């Protein structure tokens, strides 16, 4: 389907060279019976979206309710429910709408309230009970916000990013306790939406790595 636009054929030589390298050039056409079955299976799904979506054609922006459920689960208040759902893998037929899905899943946490409890010695059993635990890198460090990109998630709803938001005063305490620095890697755990300090969250080094490995590594 060549467009009428002249720029399409700008540099036909380059295009031909690209076309010669087309990895789908050797792809055999699909078996027509198989295609017919696929289309029939598609049409047997009766859960249509009938609401007209404003917006331009080809810009599939509607979020299906399922996507919202997943987003809500990610927005932590969490009981670890979404975990099994996202790792199930046997649910291929569940469609997600095309659009709006480039947005990263973000978990929001808060700094703990001022130290109202004495610290216990960090141990793997308590760590393993944390509702959220992940390895992440500090992407942004603000007065009232720390943004981490998640590299590995050990507990809690899967997220691409975790935002810790708190009033500046509390945040200062947290940043001091965990020693958050821009660009560094941290192991962070949280329960009830609050980052767990007292040696349960900190730079991803030596002892803390071992503790996380013991709690989640098995």
């Amino acid at each position, binding site marked *: *389907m060549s*467009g*009428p*636009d002249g*720029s399409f054929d*700008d540099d036909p030589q*380059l*295009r031909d*060279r*690209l*076309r*010669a*390298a087309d*990895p*789908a050039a050797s*792809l055999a056409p*699909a078996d027509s019976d198989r*295609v017919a079955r*696929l*289309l029939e299976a*598609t*049409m047997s*799904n009766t*859960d*249509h*979206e009938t609401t*007209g*979506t404003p917006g*331009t*054609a*080809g*810009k*599939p922006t*509607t979020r299906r309710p399922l996507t919202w459920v997943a987003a809500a689960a990610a927005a932590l208040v969490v009981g670890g429910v979404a975990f099994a759902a*996202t*790792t199930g893998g046997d649910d*291929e*037929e569940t*469609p*997600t*709408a*095309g*659009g709006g*899905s*480039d947005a990263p899943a973000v978990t929001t946490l808060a700094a703990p309230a001022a130290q109202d409890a004495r610290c216990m010695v960090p141990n793997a059993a308590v760590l393993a009970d944390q509702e959220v635990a992940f*390895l992440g890198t500090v992407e942004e460090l603000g007065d009232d916000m720390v943004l981490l990109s*998640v*590299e*590995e*998630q*050990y507990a809690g709803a*899967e997220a*691409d990013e975790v935002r810790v938001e708190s009033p500046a005063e509390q945040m200062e305490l947290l940043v001091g306790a965990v020693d958050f620095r821009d660009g560094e890697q941290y192991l962070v755990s949280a329960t009830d939406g609050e980052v767990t300090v007292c040696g349960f969250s900190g730079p*991803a080094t030596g002892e803390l*790595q071992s503790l*996380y*490995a013991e*709690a*989640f*590594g098995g």
Partner: protein
Amino acid sequence: MDEAERRARFEAMAPGLVEPLRRYLARRTDPATADDVLSETLLVCWRRLDEVPDEPLPWAYAVARHALANAERSARRQRRVAAKVATLDPPARMTTDPTGGQDPAGDVPLDEALAALRPAEAELLRLWAWEQLGPSEIATVLDLTPNAVSIRLHRARQKLREELRKIEAAAGHEGSRGRSRS
């Protein structure tokens, strides 16, 4: 549209989408993911039939593009979950070569030149040369304006030519790394 009309419209439209979508996906991911994303893309077209424009293919490519991004994101997550906490290094990046290096007669300088471009530029060139879309169709797939597509496509072609020149000049000096196919 009642159910019979829906079916009639889908049956008229969908067979023409399957082959281009299969090719689109074969160029960009592994066969198993391609199958999954194809089913999902068709399902979105079926469910949102009211929104599918008269020229459905670019719209369907856009759906496939999002579905593929989703599939790849969840694959990354599953690898992340599966990884033992003790291996604290970030997981190895997936190769961006959809042929998985199974193409010994491939145009090596071209692959290198494409890899040297920004991913968005390389994707523009693929949509132009492989899917053979015009600027307004590419605009639909990528959610850009046709004008922006024309400008970026022009720039991307220039950059690809420059990269090819550089790579082939270097290969000429070495005398050992030319195109494997003339």
